[in-house]
């Protein structure tokens, strides 16, 4: 089996459901807004602390600090998952080898 060929086949674009565009326009005309993500209370407190620190130190805007923190946090989360995937895969190699002994 040629995996590349099969992936192209399995992942090729599929047609959106019939009437999709009309449904989006209907929601638009009814005034429906996309769902927003809400901050938790603890996140708001952290944002407030960041804003105060900004006011004290000058420099970045509050929005930039919040955005920077979110970006850094998401990046750290992705790196963590990558690291754990790698570590657990190596552990499993060892585990399988030990099981076969």
């Amino acid at each position, binding site marked *: 089996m040629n995996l590349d060929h099969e992936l192209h086949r399995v992942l090729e674009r599929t047609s959106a459901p019939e009437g999709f565009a009309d449904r989006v326009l209907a929601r638009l005309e009814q005034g429906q807004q996309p769902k927003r993500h809400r901050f938790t209370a603890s996140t708001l407190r952290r944002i407030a602390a960041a804003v105060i620190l900004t006011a004290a130190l000058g420099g970045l805007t509050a929005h930039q600090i919040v955005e920077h923190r979110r970006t850094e946090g998401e990046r750290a989360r992705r790196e963590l998952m990558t690291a754990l995937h790698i570590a657990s895969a190596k*552990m499993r*190699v060892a585990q399988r080898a030990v099981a076969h002994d």
Partner: protein
Amino acid sequence: MTRYLVNLLLALIASAAVPFTASAQGTRINLDLPDLAAKASETTDVTLDGAMLRLAGKFLSSTDADERAAKEMINGLSGIYVRSYEFDHEGEYDKSQAERIRTQLGPSWKKIVKVTSRTKEDVDIYVDTRGDNVTGLLIISAEPKEFTVVNIVGPVDIEKLAGLEGQFGIPHIYRDSKEKHGKDKHHD
């Protein structure tokens, strides 16, 4: 506000201190191998100290099974470090480079697993201990075209870490067929 700022500055200074310090939690190992990095076609570099682990933990989902497992895994850890070097061809890197990692291991480190394969992947696993407690983990993996080292600092749950791979994507079909046939159809 002033005390807050002072504490913040102290935290920043502490985080900028010499990174390879022994602690009650265990020792961080220097995983950097510039000779390999220079030859590698791809390098994966993960450096997550305690502060970054805590930050990452805040962004982990408690409803996603993978991330819930990760959150449990990192609880209490003070660092996770990974260097993975990939090469285009076999024989492009010197496996003896691993000695630069091993020579850093003090008497508290114990080798718990050694896997040697003529054609595939050699894996050495070491744990750092304080009495009966695991305070660190080191994995050195050498494949024909990839060299990977992983250092976890802190009370790592080794069983849980090995079990994560079962959660990180092995399909139920694979597990079901393995249980049905009673053997691993993928030979190592």
